């Protein structure tokens, strides 16, 4: 269900981005969003940082590839696609964003004992939220965002004591609030 919500938001952003495109002259340029922040949930608050690089169209929508670090629960490195829709409200630039991708365990992901072996894998990574950005100079902004991010981590412990390959599978779906502050150019 959580994934469906993120997907729905992605559609909303994409749909919104498509509005009015026919009315404007297309201006495409490279853009980069770089942020630090934190993620907070049921587990202790953790540091997070990202860099997202892509193209911006007419200063009102953006699509790019993001990479970062997310230290919540266990440190992982997200790799994702990001879509943003920018709009103005009372001279303030607001944006909706939606991210979807995968992430990677940075620490030890495999271990074994005499009787069992354990493999930890990072699964999907999703993030969606709203932000605002403030112009510094032309095409350069500082931005803040608040969102809801999800990452899933599974651990499979397989018993080697028998030939039956019995295993435990633990799945942690970590839904958090993400707060980011960053610089966009």
């Amino acid at each position, binding site marked *: 269900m959580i994934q469906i919500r993120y997907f729905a938001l992605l559609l909303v952003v994409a749909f919104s981005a498509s509005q009015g495109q026919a009315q404007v002259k297309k201006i495409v340029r490279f853009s980069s969003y770089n942020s630090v922040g934190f993620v907070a949930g049921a587990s202790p608050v953790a540091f997070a940082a990202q860099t997202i690089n892509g193209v911006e169209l007419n200063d009102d929508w953006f699509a790019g590839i993001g990479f970062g670090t997310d230290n919540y629960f266990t440190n992982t490195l997200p790799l994702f696609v990001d879509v943003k829709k920018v709009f103005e409200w009372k001279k303030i630039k607001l944006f909706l964003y939606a991210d979807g991708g995968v992430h990677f365990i940075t620490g030890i992901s495999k271990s074994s004992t005499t009787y069992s072996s354990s493999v930890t894998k990072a699964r999907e990574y999703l993030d969606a939220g709203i932000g605002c950005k403030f112009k510094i100079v032309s095409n350069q902004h500082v931005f803040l965002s608040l969102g*809801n991010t999800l990452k899933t981590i599974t651990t499979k412990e397989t018993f080697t004591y028998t030939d039956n390959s019995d295993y435990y599978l633990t799945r942690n779906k970590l839904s958090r609030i993400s707060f980011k502050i960053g610089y966009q150019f």
Partner: protein
Amino acid sequence: MKITVTKKILPLGIALLFLLQQGCVKDVCSKTFTYTYFQPLYKTTQEVRANIKSNAPKPVVNPGKIYIKGNYIYLNEIDKGIHIIDNSNPATPVNKAFIDLPGNVDIAIKENILYADFYTDLVAIDISNPLNAVVKKYLENVFPMRYYYGYSVDSSRVITDWVKKTKTDNLECSSGNVMIMQGGGVLFNAMDAGLASAGPKASPVGISGSLARFALVDDYMYSVSSDSLKITNVSLASNPLKASSTWLGWGMETIYPFKDKLFLGANDGMFIYGLQNPANPVKLGTFTHVRSCDPVIADDNYAYVTLHSGTFCQGFTNQLEVLNIQNILSPQLVKTYPMTSPSGLGKDGNLLFICDGKDGLKLFNAANPNAITLIKQFAGVEATDVIAWNNIALVIATDGLYQYDYSNAADVKLISKIAVEK
């Protein structure tokens, strides 16, 4: 042109707020345990007993212990029964019949009577005509250790087969990850199933491999469980009688009779019992070693013990030990030889066959126990036990029953194979 807050944008904000609200912040943990187990299929004792006879041959699927008597090979199909193979011509063995005998892992033959375990019971079967085997007697509760935990002892029903099942249970994330013996099923004990077959001995009995747990000497049959020696009086072969039971200590694995002695392989050593009083064997000597699985065979002067490691065997030792048993009260280590994962072994004269796991079957010249030398290695044959007799090495392997002609030790030849059906 920038899009301003309009009726188009407002729903987006509402949607976003809804999504964020729904997303909430929580760590959701789910945990499952997926396992396979074996569920028993039952038949009534009456039905099963009625079918303990020479039935149509069946393919070899999970071979256990082997026994030779006359021109026939009796090959245990673990927990299922006994294949009867006409080996009049070792080059063309013919699978002739199958005795359905649930719970069977061990066999021994005296005269024309085949003794076999039938779960906790011992059954005596007349094989005067192997193709028309007839049960002569059931001796109940001889092997109480063959009771499967988790199933009530119900004399009216017998487990005839096991169905492999896979199940996934949902668990609390806080529960620990431990090995679970699930109720309603059994995880087979590979050691019970795998150790099977014995060597040349005395009396008008057949020949078994080195992994046997049954041994026949004159009027008695000796069988080892993990902790005791059961003695059955078979002076009248067709009418076995319970004689006695002796506690041996834990870890007993195999039994090998030689003349008036029994050599017991245990996971912490080799024990020699004297049969001066056959009804009451007395421990004569002991040789202890590191914890390991270790079948043993012997001749007049030396005992040969293979030690191998593994989950059930514990330990980390894989070697052949040669023991001097000329002083039976105090066996002395002569020499050890490194191996890969040795299990069954057999000896005929100076030729020593060792089943060495994935390294295959190895043939050694054991004329000098201090300098045993490899003659030939048969790679690709993951052998578990061997009977070397009358210039034919009968080898049970994971993929079939092999027969080698070793009449010329320098040119040992594979003469036949009955393949295991996958």
